């Protein structure tokens, strides 16, 4: 099941009408069966995005599709997702087995044509909610326009009276009203479009329901035919083998219809599924314990089993490793990757730990303040960062950033040209040069980045040289293979060249 997000926006309105945009027009697509990490610092909107995919937060704008079904207005219990909370949220009064079976208790098989019926109900509800939202947006627009008029009048008055404080206050209110008007104006046409689309969906759903009902009735008819045939065969005293075959056929059709009509799982079924899930996460010997009798890692595996029990279309994990100690983190990382590969469920997880994201994801979505910075495979995000933020966020120790300049097509650091191989276009301007610690090459002579050494750390396989480059504010870290230690130890000044460097504008975009 692939997940597609389009223009997703979430704005929280605080107490005094202060608006915070947590997620700002995000769009991306997650292919089926992949493990995707939402990575970013605190407050970048990754948990909010996850909760919107789950359905616990309602998006201010935008759409979410699971496959070809628009689930934006579908409540969380009907979306078919599994969510693992950061603190696991295992029901403390139920045993592990009962915890895993809890979603199964609520599973209602759809029964005859149930899926189509539900789809029709959802489509109709979608139309209704969208119409309500359109009405609300229209009202908001009218209200905002009224406010703009009144605030402009007040502003005129304040300017006449030359009341500086009042001018500021009214200007602020005016700007906020103008933003609200803009938001409503943008929403209305998109809502109208959506209503058209939703109405078409309702028609489609009605047609599908009729078709399904016809199919079911045909099946029942054929069952009845076979039953009468069996009756006649018995009356006519036909051959044993044929009668047996006919009985089998009738039984098969009967079970088929019973399965279509089935509403609930039996206890034996539930226990079997719980055992299977417990085996997948390797927790099957603890099935009768209560959550408080388990360690953190075990509790988390129970939470994952519970999320997987109802075979969700999408599995969501909210900071799955942040509550675990360091040793357990590494172990559980591998577990998550293994489970995802075994079950093949599309998985999205949220983290602020770039190492974790890089080690297990198929794709990383780097976010900052509600905006996507880059979506790519982990190694590409590391090696080809789209901007300075991504470059700084990934990699440990962090990338070293210098102030340099472009002059006449040449890249200069402290006046010296440091990248003779590439040609840089564009006008002369100051730029940021970034070099990863492992990209420094120790040059006994002829290196063009002179570094004044402060400390040298030897950690077995590498040497970390801490120092600073003259004329730059930042301290730098360089990681050199320890075979070269003789040239470095004891020296106050060493010089490096950069094997690979990145150049960014002052605003952060990458210059290729």
């Amino acid at each position, binding site marked *: 099941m692939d997940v597609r997000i389009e223009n997703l926006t979430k704005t929280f309105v605080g107490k005094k009408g202060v608006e915070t945009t947590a997620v700002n027009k995000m769009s991306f697509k997650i292919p089926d069966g992949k493990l995707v990490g939402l990575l970013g610092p605190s407050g970048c909107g990754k948990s909010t995005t996850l909760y919107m995919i789950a359905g616990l937060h309602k998006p201010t704008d935008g759409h979410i599709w699971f496959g070809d079904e628009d689930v934006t207005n579908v409540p969380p*219990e009907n979306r078919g997702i599994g969510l693992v*909370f950061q*603190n696991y949220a295992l029901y403390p009064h139920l045993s592990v087995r009962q915890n895993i079976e*809890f979603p199964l208790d*609520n599973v209602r098989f759809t029964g005859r044509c149930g899926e189509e019926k539900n789809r029709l109900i959802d489509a109709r509800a979608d139309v209704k909610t969208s119409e309500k939202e359109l009405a609300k947006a229209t009202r908001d627009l009218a209200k905002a326009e009224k406010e703009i008029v009144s605030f402009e009048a007040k502003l005129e008055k304040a300017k006449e009276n030359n009341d500086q404080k009042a001018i500021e206050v009214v200007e602020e209110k005016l700007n906020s009203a103008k933003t609200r008007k803009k938001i409503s104006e943008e929403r209305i046409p998109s809502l109208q479009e959506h209503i058209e689309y939703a109405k078409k969906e309702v028609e489609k759903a009605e047609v599908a329901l009729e078709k399904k009902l016809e199919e079911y009735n045909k099946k029942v008819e054929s069952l009845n035919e076979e039953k009468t045939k069996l009756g006649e065969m018995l009356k006519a005293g036909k051959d044993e083998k044929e009668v047996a075959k006919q009985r089998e056929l009738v039984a098969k059709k009967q079970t088929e219809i019973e399965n279509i009509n089935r509403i609930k799982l039996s206890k034996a079924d539930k226990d079997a599924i719980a055992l299977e899930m417990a085996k997948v996460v390797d927790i099957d010997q603890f099935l009768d314990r209560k959550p408080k009798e388990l360690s953190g890692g075990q509790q988390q595996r129970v939470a994952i089993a*519970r999320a997987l029990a*109802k075979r969700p279309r999408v599995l969501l994990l909210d900071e799955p490793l942040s509550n675990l100690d360091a040793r357990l983190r590494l172990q559980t990382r591998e577990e998550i990757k293994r489970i995802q590969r075994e079950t093949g469920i599309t998985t999205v997880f949220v983290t602020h730990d770039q190492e974790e994201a890089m080690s297990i994801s198929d794709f990383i979505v780097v976010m900052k303040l509600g905006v996507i910075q880059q979506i790519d495979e982990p190694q590409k995000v590391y090696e080809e960062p789209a901007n300075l933020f991504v470059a700084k966020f990934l990699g440990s120790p962090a990338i070293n950033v210098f102030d340099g300049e472009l002059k006449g097509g040449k890249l200069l650091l402290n006046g010296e040209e440091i990248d003779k191989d590439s040609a840089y276009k564009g006008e002369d301007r100051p730029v940021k040069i970034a070099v990863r610690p492992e990209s420094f090459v120790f040059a006994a002579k002829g290196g063009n980045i002179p570094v004044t050494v402060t400390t040298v750390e030897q950690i077995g396989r590498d040497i970390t040289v801490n120092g600073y480059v003259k004329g730059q504010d930042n301290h730098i870290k360089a990681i050199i293979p320890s075979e070269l230690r003789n040239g470095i130890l004891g020296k106050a000044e060493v010089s490096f060249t950069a094997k690979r460097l990145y150049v960014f504008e002052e605003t952060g975009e990458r210059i290729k």
Partner: protein
Amino acid sequence: MVATENSIQGTETVFDPMKAKLISKRRRVSLPQWAVAWLVLIPALIFISMFMLYPIINTFLYAFIQNFKYEKGAGSFALGQFFTGISRGKVFTFGLSNFKLALSNETFIYSIGNTAILVIVEVPLTITVSLLIATFLNNIKVLKGFYQTIFFLPYVTNTIALGLIFNLAFSYSPGGFINVFLNKVFGVKDPINWLQSDAYKPGMMVSTKFTQGVVIVLYSLWNGIAFKILVFMSGLATIDSQYYNAAKIDGASNFTIWRRITLPLLSPQILYITITSFIGAFKMYTGVMAVYQGAESNQSYYFGSIPELPADRDGEAWIPIVGWIYRELEHNYDAPGIASAASLILLAIIMVITAAQFAVSKKRVHY
């Protein structure tokens, strides 16, 4: 600095490591820790022994001494009576005769029946209603403070005053607004006689034990829900809202969430309220008496009258156990034995019920 043993008026023998010698401050009386503890506890202990321990010992003694009558001039302290009596040549025997007398008293058995009916009807009803109201209060966002105030008002009202209000509300005379309410809203034609015993008008419904019981139960309900709602609301507040989110994702409807998540996680509070409510309900007295106050009788403890009771037991329609004990003490003011035995029987009943509740709770209460 190293602190020495507890002292009340403070001696501190201070050891200053920087100067490495003992600097002694003012020397005052220093008491050991156990003495301090006793000193602090004694006021409370005196209070408890006077008002709880002494009556309990008294009751036990009076209950087990057969044919006991108060001696003049020996005070009310049972041991005092005991020894004075012996010194005056009385012989005391210990036995169970008081218990036998109590249990063979028809009115006492009748009062046990009354109390049992009231408890069985009132306690589950009050707990259920408080649970529902607490859930409702927990879920509403608008006007929450307003509703909370309304539902907590009964707690701050005086029991007897409340009984007076109920008496007036359920009154048969044309002002009684319950009857007015039934008439206007539900179209009940004849006013119901809830509490009054005499028939003033021919053809009028006489108040029956049932109608009187309804008023008593409603009164106890009104009186009891406030505290229970408070306890349940505090319990609901401790339930992490993540459980509700998780249950939603697991596909549970609101009712399923309430039944399988909220109630089990609320079970410690429910157990506490159930046990204390049963205990309190068995001791019900002011509740019953307050409802009947101002009714037409000169008897001091009037518990309603119904035609089925014999004339000499008029005023005992809904007499509870504690009411019977007080009435017994009133009639036999110098022979407290039977009343004491009755209170011990009440104690035994309550203990059995409470033990049964604890036994059931082991499986159903989740901490």
